[in-house]
């Protein structure tokens, strides 16, 4: 495999947590790209909140069905065993705990698991879509984000400063620098990107980060 850049390694690392038998929803943007790194043989059911369980491969425009998109508007194919349903059933599936995992983007994540990913007051407030329910009700919530914003400011904070999407919902954060877990004991560094030092991660993180004494796996 060709050498992966930091973003690609982040996506590949997140993909490793998608396990056989899971029903999974991948948020628009980076999270959707995680599927590139999931084995085609793994039995996983991809849900998209506009009304399908069993999202298959993306299709090109010339092969597209005008009535078959994912929640991001991409033309998709159904896998054998897919089902279509209305928006109420789609979110019933989310809220009643049938989603084993969702991966979402973030503006900010807090050490207590709070997530902010839909409003930047004065700059961006185009609606929450389905994010609140995905964040609050999926059994596991992963966030995929660059460790810092484009100005180098940390996106992982002691407390979020932006309006929240959901409280205390994030279990794991995948960044270009590290994998961190949010636990009852706080934020814990679990893995580290190749070529990144623990000090780099600590400096780029805006919250107390517990560093295990054992050597950290890299990805």
């Amino acid at each position, binding site marked *: 495999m060709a050498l992966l850049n930091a973003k690609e390694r982040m996506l590949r690392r997140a993909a490793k947590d998608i396990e*056989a038998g899971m*029903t999974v929803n991948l948020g628009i943007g980076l999270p959707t790209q995680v599927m590139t790194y999931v084995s085609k043989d793994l039995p996983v059911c991809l849900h998209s909140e506009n009304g399908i369980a069993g999202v298959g491969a993306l299709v090109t425009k010339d092969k597209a069905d005008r009535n078959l998109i994912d929640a991001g508007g991409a033309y998709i194919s159904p896998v*054998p*065993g897919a089902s*279509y349903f209305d928006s109420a059933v789609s979110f*019933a599936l989310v*809220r*009643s705990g049938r989603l084993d995992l969702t991966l979402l983007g973030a503006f900010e994540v807090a050490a207590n698991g709070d997530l902010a990913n839909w409003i930047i007051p004065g700059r961006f407030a185009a609606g929450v879509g389905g994010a609140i329910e995905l964040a609050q009700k999926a059994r596991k919530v992963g966030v995929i984000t660059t460790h810092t914003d484009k100005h180098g400011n940390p996106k992982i904070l002691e407390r979020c400063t932006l309006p929240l999407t959901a409280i205390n919902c994030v279990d794991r954060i995948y960044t270009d620098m590290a994998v961190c877990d949010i636990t009852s004991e706080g934020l814990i560094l679990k893995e580290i990107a190749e070529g990144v030092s623990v000090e780099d991660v600590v400096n780029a993180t805006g919250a107390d980060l517990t560093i295990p004494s054992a050597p950290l796996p890299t990805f």
Partner: protein
Amino acid sequence: MPMPDKTTDMAGVITLIPDGASIMVGGFGVPGSPFCLIEELVRQGQKNLTIIKNDSNEAGMGVDWLLQSGQVKKLITSHIGLNPNAVRLMNEGLIEVEFVAQGILAERIRVAGAGLMGFVTDIGMGTPLAEGKQRVTFEGKEGIFEPALKADFALVHADTADPFGNLTFNATARNFNPLIAMAARCTIAEAERVVPLGKIDPGHVQTPAPFVDHVVALPDLPEVYGIVER
């Protein structure tokens, strides 16, 4: 991408049910009643069950088997008028019966399956069914709070299933089946036919597979599923 295979055997899957479990059961009369799953539950003999079902079937079939074998502690239902055994057990205090208006029962199950806490309705206001229930007033109008009704297990009868657990129901055998499939912690479906993945049109699926945990293929249907001679 393959989908997970949830097909399993009848005896094994019913052993998942412990004494004291709450169990939703599909069916309105005969259509949609999962007689084979119930029969195995009778054979295994789990006790102190709470059964949630539209009706208690007729004497000599389905839920009545569980009543006769003394496995039922409580019945949550809309009516038991077609089963004199159920009426007698209730009157003698041998089972507890909670009556819920039929559409309210359907909706309490549905909101559980939709991951909500409950709903507010004016149905039953001024009648005995409203007594003792929590009230909610919104914009000057008073309603009754009806809590979500969940269960540990749902026993569903499907016409067709695929191994992933997509289900279709036949005519009026649909009734409570798609609702209970969403509202239980563990949903077990018996199916008259299990067809390969992709054989059910995704647009014709009536219960999407993520709601279903186990699929059991039925052998030739016993007579109890047939036309009732009255």
